[in-house]
């Protein structure tokens, strides 16, 4: 059972990780927590629903690409409309964060008002969804999501370390003004950044839609991803991934633990949020966030 729980934990954790990367990317450069990320994830899932079930019946892979692109564009628009003016005015990052919260609530309620609270399911990608090894079962969708996320994050890592754009993003995470003085168009840079973060969010949304379901408040789960990002160290890419995986694992293990006859499953969030508080006390920058010098 322990092995099964670890597999479950990793599968939940990988979703957290994918979402946490989106938070960390934006935080690393703009220094604020983009709480609208959860709504972008939700919209990504709705795009997939629209093209796979609602209006067309496109197969999974093209739908995934459309959702990634769509969510990327939405994140870009989100930045253009809600953040860019504040950013140019050099407003304190707190204002950006509050604006992000506003966008998040606004988008979620827009979904309630237009599409409604109805729950939707995305069609299963694999006909026989699980692989069995004796008592052990692994969902094929989990394996696929895990592999796809890993490859995407690896590509992202290559982009960040090997390309000019990546170098500019990394440089901007150290000193945005300096980068702009050196001739980098900040607007383009931030647009690319949000497109990437949004695209990753759209991907996470589609995976969640297939594994669970699609509904307006599904972005709630990003709270957990955000905690993952904080545990790992906001602004750090490996930190976001490890923080997310760690949180998923911890939650799954707490769920099966018990003290005496009391099952701890109901205390799951007490543990995950408690650990967040403890980590912030012991290591205010998270596990991997080492000051400003070593972001990304």
């Amino acid at each position, binding site marked *: *059972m322990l092995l*099964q*729980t670890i597999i*479950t*934990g990793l*599968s*939940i954790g990988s979703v957290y990780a994918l979402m946490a990367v989106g938070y960390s990317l934006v935080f690393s450069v703009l220094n604020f927590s983009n709480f609208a990320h959860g709504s972008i994830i939700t919209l990504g899932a709705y795009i997939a629903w629209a093209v796979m079930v609602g209006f067309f019946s496109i197969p999974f892979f093209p739908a995934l690409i459309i959702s990634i692109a769509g969510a990327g564009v939405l994140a870009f628009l989100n930045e253009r409309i809600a953040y860019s003016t504040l950013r140019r005015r050099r407003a304190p990052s707190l204002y950006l964060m509050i604006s992000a919260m506003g966008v998040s609530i606004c988008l979620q309620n827009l979904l309630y008002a237009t599409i409604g609270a*109805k*729950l*939707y*399911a995305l069609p*299963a990608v694999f006909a026989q*969804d*699980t692989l*069995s090894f004796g008592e052990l*079962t692994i*969902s094929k969708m989990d394996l696929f999501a895990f592999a796809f996320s890993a490859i995407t994050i690896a590509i992202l890592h290559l982009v960040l370390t090997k390309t000019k754009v990546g170098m500019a993003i990394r440089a901007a995470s150290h000193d945005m003004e300096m980068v702009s003085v050196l001739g980098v168009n900040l607007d383009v840079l931030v647009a690319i950044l949000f497109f990437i973060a949004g695209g990753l969010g759209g991907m996470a949304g589609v995976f*969640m839609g297939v*594994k*669970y*379901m699609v*509904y307006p*408040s*599904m972005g*709630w*789960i990003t709270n957990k991803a955000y905690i993952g990002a904080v545990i790992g160290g906001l602004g750090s890419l490996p930190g976001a991934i490890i923080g997310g995986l760690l949180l998923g694992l911890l*939650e*799954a*293990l707490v*769920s*099966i633990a018990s003290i005496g006859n009391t*099952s701890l*499953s*109901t205390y*799951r*969030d007490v543990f995950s949020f408690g650990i967040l508080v403890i980590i912030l006390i012991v290591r205010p920058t998270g596990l991997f966030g080492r000051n400003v010098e070593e972001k990304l």
Partner: protein
Amino acid sequence: MKRVITSLVLTAVAIALIVGCKPAEKKAPAKEATIKIGHTVALTGSNATWGQAEANALLMIVEKLNAAGGVLGKKLEVIAYDNRADKLESVNVAKRLIEQDKVVAIIGPAQSGVANAIREVNNAAKVPVIGTTATNPKVTVADDGKVVPYTFRVCFIDPFQGTVAAQFAVRDLKAKTAAVLYDVGDDYSQFLGKYFIEAFTKGGGKITANEGFRSGELDFRAQLGKIKTGKPDVLFIPTMQKEAALAAKQARDLKIASTLIGGDGWASPDLIDLAGPAIEGAYFVNIAALEDPAIQDFIKEYKARFNADPVLPNPLMAYDAAIWIVDALKRAGTTDGEKLMKAMEETKDLQVLTGKLTVDPATHNPLNKPATIQQVKDKKFIYVKTFVTTD
């Protein structure tokens, strides 16, 4: 500006409602020869679909009762006012019914919170109220454990469903072991789970696991993994359709073979859309089903008259409540509130639409009320049986 417009519109609506209600009041004193039953019901707002059906059902049963000679030598008359399922409005409605229309009893409200709101009014005036679908236990039994003297209900209470599910599992499914997966953040789910466990254990079954999750969670595989090790015959999931669908899917992914059982929170077509094949064969408890053989005549009549299917379960409950009041009036021989209340309390084995009605004087809840068991089969809810619990 928008606010001003909104409040203007609201005021206009309020005036229209008050004015709209006037004729009924004027008409009332003219007919001294009738026995009046009040109906407090949501005829507008989001609960209106059930409220309208309730009013329609009362129209049907009162016509029938009057055709059979009425009661105590007088004809019956139902006076219905819209309470919009709003607590404040309901207090006004209750006062108007009691003070101006002098009703002998009130049918409705359908919502537990609304029933609690009018408690002071009807109990002070000694006018019995019968909640139609107010399922919260506290409606008829106050916090101090004492029964609220003039408040009754005709539906079952939330915890009762847990007992039905457990006894059905033991007797019909021959289950020896069971596990429960419930939502710790939800009273409905917690109570249902608790009463299931009590009744299942009482019936000789063994609980292998009782696992909780927090409202809003989507992944229950960790808990289900633990449940799987106990290999329970049945898995009881007392939640709404969303969690039930997710849990069903994840349970089948983990190759849990247990029969799944739920409560009336499952009764939404969403369940089938979301869970797909994972939910096939699962059973759940419901207040009423359109296919229930006992109510086919009622449905036929309702359809012929109102050109639509009755929106269950409210019309059935209002219908039963009317039969109950008339029976109690006959036995009491008077419209005096105190005597009527006593007669209502003593109701035993009264034949109503949904079965036999016996009232528990200690709680004012119907005893051994039949519940409907439904099953998911071929992507549809089918009627399995009408189930009566035993203690």
